[in-house]
């Protein structure tokens, strides 16, 4: 691979050079040609750096909570990395990344590295490259790395595959009991944080959440439910205690390493598969637009093109076999 330059940059990451780390994060985010060889060099499935995911609906206090967790880990002498994801405009491609506003008190602490990311069209609450950025942070020996998702809806659960521990942040006043019974986001928290606990409706929210958790078949996997106020700091000690016991209880580092590796490989397969299919369609019809034109002229249908692609993959496999036999 493009070794010397990539090795040099990987070295900078490992030696904790701030500018180097920032540069490599951009290359990863932008899909720079050097990103794969750098990641190849940095990837370590057995890394010890802990990943904590913080997710929840918009405006539930994820950034303020992240800020509190930074304070906690800094007090324990940890070097803290933060990846904060905010939405990219589907129209302009621009983004307003504002999570740092809530983390100002740590802005000059050399033991804290905060990186904001636009999701750039990726669904799931993260950006498509958050998973790779995490590997880079881990290689620069940030431990833990806090990943704050963008404000999510009901089904953005990618963070759960990526993080060792996921905190789901809920607040009072966002719907009735049925909301806590729904599938998706309500199923992913290792710890459920009931934030803004000074607000009316907190008792009811706690009751609904607990009633929903009572129905989990395996009660040993029951997440803890913690009331707190990220703004005032009340209850944060209970939350950090819950995180610590969750870590020591541990899903098992091996299981997490396997889960994370599977996620990375699956997304790479998906991305490369998409590229390959698009290239094949373009080779045949000039471009995707050209294929649309052919369909509109009645020469083919989207489904026939789909069949064509399946055939292309099967033939390719057979050709590869032939070649291997030769």
């Amino acid at each position: 691979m493009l070794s010397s330059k990539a090795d040099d940059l990987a070295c900078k990451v490992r030696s904790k050079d701030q500018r180097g780390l920032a540069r490599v994060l951009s290359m990863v985010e932008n899909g720079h040609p050097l990103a794969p060889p750098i990641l190849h060099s940095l990837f370590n499935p057995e890394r010890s750096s802990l990943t904590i995911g913080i997710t929840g609906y918009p405006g539930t206090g994820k950034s303020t909570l992240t800020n509190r967790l930074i304070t906690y880990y800094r007090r324990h002498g940890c070097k803290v990395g933060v990846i904060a994801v905010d939405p990219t405009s589907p129209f302009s491609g621009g983004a307003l990344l504002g999570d740092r506003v809530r983390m100002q008190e740590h802005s000059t602490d050399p033991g804290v590295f905060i990186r904001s990311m636009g999701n750039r069209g990726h669904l799931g609450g993260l950006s498509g490259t958050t998973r790779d950025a995490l590997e880079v942070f881990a290689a620069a020996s940030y431990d833990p790395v806090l990943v704050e998702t963008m404000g999510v809806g009901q089904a953005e659960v990618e963070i759960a595959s990526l993080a060792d521990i996921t905190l789901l942040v809920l607040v009072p006043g966002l719907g009735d009991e049925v909301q806590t019974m729904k599938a998706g986001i309500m199923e992913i928290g290792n710890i459920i944080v009931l934030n803004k606990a000074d607000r009316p409706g907190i008792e009811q929210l706690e009751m609904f959440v607990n009633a929903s958790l009572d129905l989990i078949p395996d009660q040993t996997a029951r997440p803890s439910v913690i009331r707190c106020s990220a703004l005032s700091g009340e209850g944060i000690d209970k939350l950090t205690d819950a995180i610590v016991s969750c870590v020591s209880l541990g899903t098992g580092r091996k299981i997490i390493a396997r889960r994370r590796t599977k996620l990375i490989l699956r997304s790479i397969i998906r991305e490369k598969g998409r590229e390959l299919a698009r290239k094949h369609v373009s080779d045949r019809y000039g471009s995707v637009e050209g294929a649309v034109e052919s369909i509109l002229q009645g020469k083919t249908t989207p489904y026939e093109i789909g069949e064509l692609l399946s055939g292309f993959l099967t033939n390719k496999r057979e050709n590869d076999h032939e070649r291997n036999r030769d």
Partner: protein
Amino acid sequence: MDRRIRILIGKPGLDGHDRGAKYIARALRDAGMEVIYTGIRQTPEAIAVAAIQEDVDFVGLSLLSGAHNHLFPEVARLLKEKGGSDIILFGGGVIPEEDIPGLKEAGFKAIFTPGASSSEVVDFIEQEIQTR
């Protein structure tokens, strides 16, 4: 490659008037750029650190308090110290005409004063990014 222009918009010093900064941040967002907004009452040190960590192409400072002659050059100095001398600086706010040459000397490529339109800022950025 999917490269986006990244810009930090910051407000140094004791000045809570953030309407202008937010307006520009929004306009740059709508022009397809990634804008990191750091909020009000930032120290020059905090702005410089954030600019390095976020690997931005530009830092835009907004100030209406009158302390620009001190705070703007300080941000420029700290950025240079931290290895970010290639980051392009610009500023805006209530800044007297006679202060502009000094700020340009300190490394600011452009100073936008009241009445400047957001498209002037966007044009400036799109032009300057060619030199990066």
